[in-house]
């Protein structure tokens, strides 16, 4: 049931207004924080206010402008979009708190917070995009708005990373554009619909071209191998950026886009007939394993996290490509599960770097005695990734395995198990170092020098509260998502609604 309502527009608009205000009054620290928090809070409230309606099956729609018939900008808060928007709005609030602490004393903070707000608003715009054009519009805007954040440090490496990032994502954007254009040409509409937009008699070859173009386009941001090259390099960005954008917003947008293509452009049924999904599932399976293997070999913490992200993102793609209700459910839930767990890790890694200047795995010996709370949170996230029951990651793997069995693809279960072991292989050494090894005696202060200005508080307990509070909250969420998977009213129920209403599959859970 569609209801015309201004709220889907209001949500991104709030962050846009916030960005504008930050650019305008940014030199004043107070006002910058004031507007940012006001907008973040207001947006979360707006999104939450739509939640009851979504659970009851209502879809809020607002049309912004129509260019020509069939080509318009419109926003539509369906269940899947709501799920994504909820995750990103919640994390905006947390990341903002963290970023204020992390960026203290850094340069160009106006630019940083301004573009940060812009990125978040475009993420919500993507979540609520009613059609491919709107999706693409926000998708490319996100690319551009992320660029100043990636090159924030203005070092040669940062500039190089920025260029590589742009090259990958803009080329991807080009394919997405071509795909959208072909979709409009073939289907006569761009509106994402429950059962796909193409008529049954559309030529298969043309559909294959559309599928390849769109998956290539959105797959770049979802970092499917071999399109993942930009992600580890982009880790030069400040940690809050890596956390929110390269663990959550940007990369999730890619995965979100691919799911939209699978279920709302093509539709499960048609894709089942066409048989395009299995190759994508295979690619995703490969990425899961290869990403994990590569992650083991990284000593730089953020790069290890990046490869882990690459691997984890393909869970979403795999779940979606299975074309079964449980697989889809796993895909949706993993959007949240991975987000909270990965952001916890990034926060902790950032806090460690800020406090001690340590950026490499090999330097982490005994860090748990220095920062026990942070490392506890890190442990929670790591366990979630490994897939222990009671943690968020377990639910994904559980449903994904069930989904794979529904699709008679038992060997994906094997992939999942292997991935769990690989995850253990690269997270547990960190935990081992942190908890069971004595800290190395400071030899020559080299570590402090590497930390730069941030390494200035050697004797403070843990880290500043603005860093610690978001860490703890995120870790708590990871547990919460894990233990409440089947409690009605929790995120899972939104995901169930999304599978039913947004994807047009039968209800995955009784």
């Amino acid at each position, binding site marked *: 049931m569609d209801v015309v309502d201004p709220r889907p527009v209001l949500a991104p608009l709030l962050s846009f207004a916030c960005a504008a205000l930050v650019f305008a009054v940014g030199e004043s620290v107070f006002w910058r924080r004031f507007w940012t928090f006001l907008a973040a809070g207001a947006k979360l409230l707006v999104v939450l206010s739509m939640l009851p309606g979504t659970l009851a099956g209502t879809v809020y729609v607002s049309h912004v*402008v129509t*260019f020509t018939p069939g080509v*318009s900008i419109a926003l539509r808060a369906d269940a899947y979009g709501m799920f994504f928007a909820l995750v990103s709005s919640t994390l905006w609030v947390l990341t903002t708190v963290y970023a204020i602490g992390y960026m203290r004393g850094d340069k160009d903070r106006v630019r940083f917070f301004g573009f940060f707000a812009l990125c978040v608003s475009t993420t919500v715009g993507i979540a609520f995009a009613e059609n491919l*054009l709107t999706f693409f519009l926000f998708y490319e805007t996100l690319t551009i708005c992320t*660029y100043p954040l990636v090159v924030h440090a203005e070092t040669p490496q940062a500039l190089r990373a920025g260029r590589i990032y742009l090259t990958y994502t*803009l080329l991807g954007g*080009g394919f997405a554009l*071509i795909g959208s*254009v072909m979709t409009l040409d073939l289907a006569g509409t761009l509106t994402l619909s429950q059962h796909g937009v193409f008529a049954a008699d559309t030529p298969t070859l043309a559909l294959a071209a559309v599928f390849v173009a769109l998956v290539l386009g959105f797959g770049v941001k979802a970092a499917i191998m071999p399109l993942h090259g930009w992600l580890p390099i982009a880790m030069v960005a400040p940690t809050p950026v890596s956390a929110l954008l390269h663990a959550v917003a940007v990369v999730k947008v890619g995965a979100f886009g691919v799911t939209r293509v699978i279920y709302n452009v093509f539709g499960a049924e048609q894709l089942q007939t066409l048989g395009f999904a299995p190759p994508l599932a295979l690619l995703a399976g490969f990425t899961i394993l290869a990403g994990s293997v590569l992650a083991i070999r990284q000593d730089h913490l953020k790069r290890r996290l990046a490869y882990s992200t690459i691997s984890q993102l393909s869970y979403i793609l795999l779940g979606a490509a299975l074309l079964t209700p449980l697989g889809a459910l796993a895909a949706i839930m993993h959007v949240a599960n991975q987000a909270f767990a990965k952001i916890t890790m990034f926060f902790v890694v950032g806090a460690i770097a800020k406090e001690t200047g340590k950026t490499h795995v090999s330097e982490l010996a005994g860090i748990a005695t220095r920062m026990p709370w942070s490392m506890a949170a890190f442990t929670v996230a790591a366990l979630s990734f490994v897939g222990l029951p009671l943690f968020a990651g377990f639910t994904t793997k559980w449903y994904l395995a069930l989904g794979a069995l529904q699709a008679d693809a038992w060997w994906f279960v094997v992939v999942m198990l292997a991935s769990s072991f690989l995850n253990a292989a690269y997270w547990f050494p960190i935990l081992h170092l942190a908890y069971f090894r004595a800290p190395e005696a400071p030899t020559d202060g080299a570590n402090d020098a590497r930390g730069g200005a941030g390494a200035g508080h050697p004797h403070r307990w843990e880290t500043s509260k603005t860093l610690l509070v978001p860490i703890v909250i995120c870790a708590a969420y990871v547990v919460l998502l894990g233990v409440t998977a089947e409690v009605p009213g929790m995120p899972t129920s939104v995901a169930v609604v999304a599978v039913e209403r947004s994807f047009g599959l039968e209800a995955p859970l009784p």
Partner: protein
Amino acid sequence: MTTLGSTLLPWLVALPLVGAALVPIVARHDARRAGGLTFAVALATTALASILVAQLASQGPFSADLGGWTAPYGIELRFDRFAAWTMPLAALFAFVIPFSWRYLDGTLPRERWAPFYALLLLNLGGLLGFSVTGDLFNLFVTMEVVSLSSYALVAVAGRGVAAWAALKYLLLGAVSSLLVLFAVGLLFALTGSLNLADVSARLAAAEPSGAALLALASLAVAFLVKAAVFPLHVWLPDAHAIAPSPVSAVLSGLVVKVGIVGLLRVLQLAAGTGIALEPLNAVLMVLGATAIVMGAFLAIFQDDIKLMLAYSTISNIGYIVLGIGLASPFALIGAFVHVFNHALIKVTLFLAAGAIIHQTGYRTLSDLHGVARRMPQTAAAMAIGAVSIVGLPPTAGFVCKWYIALGAFEADQGGYGFALVFGALFIFVYYVRMLDAFFFRAPVRPEVAAAVEAPWSMRAPVLVLAAACLVLGVLGGIPIGFVEPAVVDLLAALGR
């Protein structure tokens, strides 16, 4: 049947021309008055054009019979939906002129201010006349007003190099003008009429002849030269880069569009004559795609920001020509909207570049490192323009790219869609270098490190235009809605 629209239409053309004649008179004693008068005239022209567009929206196309002689016995001015572009055209002049006020300080000696402003107004008047005229010979004369003032404007501020660039422009431009005159002569000999609609109808009634074909071909070649379509672009880069920045903005944003409006006239002439347009369209598609790629490619090697913008004009004209060649509804809509959107974006870019050059004295990227620290607003406008010219959302440039790409697939020419989308990305390589240099690098030149933001009379136009680039990205439906019926009519007339 004299309506408000048809009464005011001739004055739209006459107003800036008469204003130009008055400028040297008013500025006899104080050169600064020239700028004020010119601005007032441009504003009045914009207002007049707005009234006409409003009339058009409420009553549909109208025409004015000059001297009261009904067409084809007199000259007819016609205000249809394509002509609605005269409104933004005049408005862009109203932005360029206040920008010039302070820009001319130190660029031109005072005794040459009045001729400079007069030339700008003549250019405006010529462009307006060219856009609204419904008469072939009048088309030629208005085109000459535009061309002549453009040649001079190129050479206004420089000495040898500028004159040489202007002369190259003049020689090629004069030949293309001559081709237009020759074609007008041919068509007159064939039909005995000079009125566009009448000539078209009479051509349609007669047997298709080689002479008509030659006339249309001459017109097409002439307008392709005027539009600087690759490989007929040789005159453009130097002329547009060497001219003073406000002039570059006018030339690159508006004057090259003479060629495009001219091509539109060729299509209107050919409509219904039974002359097969497929060869022309095929040529236009190839030329357009080549221009997109080559313009972008050549831009990459430029260190001079204005030269780079000049090459990007070649690339963008390629979009428009490709759109016209594809001749499918969406492609034509995209092409014609891009006529305006490209003007807006390019004026923004050249004015922003002009402000930067004026404030720092440097014009190459390697000298301009870190300029955004000292001139953040101008640099931000430049960034918005850069994103827009590449056609990334949510800017004005995207809307056109989207429609032309759509048109390519609609016309079953998907390959051109690829050329369009990725050719545009090609040029972004360069713009990224520019943004890096401006925003993320430390200044290397003391003048840049000590630069200050441009005065408000220069900054305000730049900022407003940059904002317009963003607004038109979201509200792109307005120009599209305006052009769509006209495109449908044109295609119907062409028998598609």
